[in-house]
């Protein structure tokens, strides 16, 4: 797989403190393990990786890196301990590529600076893999992390 990194994507990498080799590695690992999210039309994927205290996501197509985002809050597991059915439509727009199951919008416990709280996640009920969407990570989690950094200082 030959993933092109445009100037725009390169800037995103810099903004997020992620190296080019790192993101390409994350994509490579996801492609070989199959552990990734795939859009319903199959054209876009999300791969997840970790570096020290950062969770890194690559959003990519077959040919180029489309988006990069990160969060410092560390995903621990499903809020409440297990995936039980909920009484609302929790199907996300993403599919776990490994299991072929629709990823569910569920709360996941996240920990940062010694504080554990829930956050909105994307979860595969079959393999249990947990992700955070770009919208959530870039806004809600960024603000939450900033508040925790300020208040836990």
């Amino acid at each position, binding site marked *: 797989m030959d993933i092109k990194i445009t100037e725009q994507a390169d800037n995103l990498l810099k903004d997020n403190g992620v190296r080019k080799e790192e993101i390409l590695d994350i994509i490579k690992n996801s492609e070989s393990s199959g552990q990734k999210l795939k859009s319903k039309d199959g054209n876009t994927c999300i791969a997840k990786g970790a570096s020290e205290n950062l969770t890194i996501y690559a959003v990519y197509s077959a040919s180029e890196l489309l988006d990069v985002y990160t969060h410092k809050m560390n995903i621990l597991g499903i809020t409440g301990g297990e995936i039980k059915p909920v*009484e609302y*439509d929790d199907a996300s727009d993403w599919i776990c590529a490994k299991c072929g199951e629709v990823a569910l919008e*569920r709360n996941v416990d996240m920990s940062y600076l010694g504080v554990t709280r*829930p*956050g909105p996640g994307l979860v595969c009920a079959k393999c249990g893999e947990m992700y955070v969407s770009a919208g959530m990570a870039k806004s*809600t989690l960024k*603000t939450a992390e900033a508040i925790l950094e300020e208040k836990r200082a």
Partner: protein
Amino acid sequence: MPAQDYIPIDSDWLGKAGSLWTTPWVDKPSDRVIVDPIILSHAATLYRKNAGYFYSNPDEAVRMVCGACELYDVTPVGHYLYADYWGADYGAEIKIQTNAPPGITNRPIKTAEDVDNFEVLSTEDLVKGPTLTTHYKALDTVKNEYPQMFAPITQLGGTMEVATNWASIEDVFMWMITEPELVDKLCVKAGDHMVNACRATAERYGANVMITGSVIASGDLMDREQIKRFSYQPVSRAVRKVLNAGAGPGVYYHLCGNHTDDFDLWKDAPMSPFTIVQIGYDGQNIFPTSKLVENFGDRCTCFGTVDTKLIDRGTPAQVYAQAKEQVIAGKDSPRGFILGTACECPTNAPPVNVHALVRAAKDFGKYEKF
């Protein structure tokens, strides 16, 4: 009363209250549980003004609230809101009342066709509308005059509350039986409105705390299936959208009234790292904090309650006894605990009763978990 008529907030008190207030959100140790009696127009009575005066003067209203917070030694946040938000933006009339929060009349949706034709206002239009103009006048006053007591809150209620500020409660309840799909449509529009309103606050102040939940949609008026369909599900969708749109991160689930039959649904409602759940009643009785913590304590911050009827018409001893039981059951809840009232502090509640609530937190709310 202009700003110079108020004495500045005691900075020592503010520092201590700020530290108590931080604990339930970020687990930073402090001495004891903080109390939030949800003071709104009650503050006006401490200044010998009435609810009408309070709601006609949003800047003065928050000065009174901030002063009341210090007087009672409670959560240092300058709140301003009332239940009937968002009617006026769509053409309803708002009526300021002397002894009660504002009420709306002449709601814009009167027929089924009105529901179909109803268009949710954009964020830009909402900012120019009467609700947010007044709301932001209050919040801006707090931000400028009491910056440490500022919180960017947006009052929404849930989808049923927004819907019944657009259409009369009688019509909505009738449609629930005769044309439930119409109420579904209304709730979808209410959800879209919630997202746009939260966006406005987040854009203005950089973050937003949404007050949502289920008030009219409680066991007193609706059964579990109705609450699920018209409140829990559309509210959950709206909260997800709000968080995804960067219009969080605060989520306050205010489940007012009786939630015996539906409280468990909300355990899986979308949550952010700054989520709080408050449940009013379990049947006729105050919702036991032990039950709240048992169900929500390993998920989010819990808001334990004392009966507002007791605050309004009970004795200090009765308030103190109930507050004692609730605070002991909740204080060491793993993800934080706040003691407060089941709903806003009644306008004319005796101040000694609010004091009794706070005393109970001081006497029995010392943390043991740190």
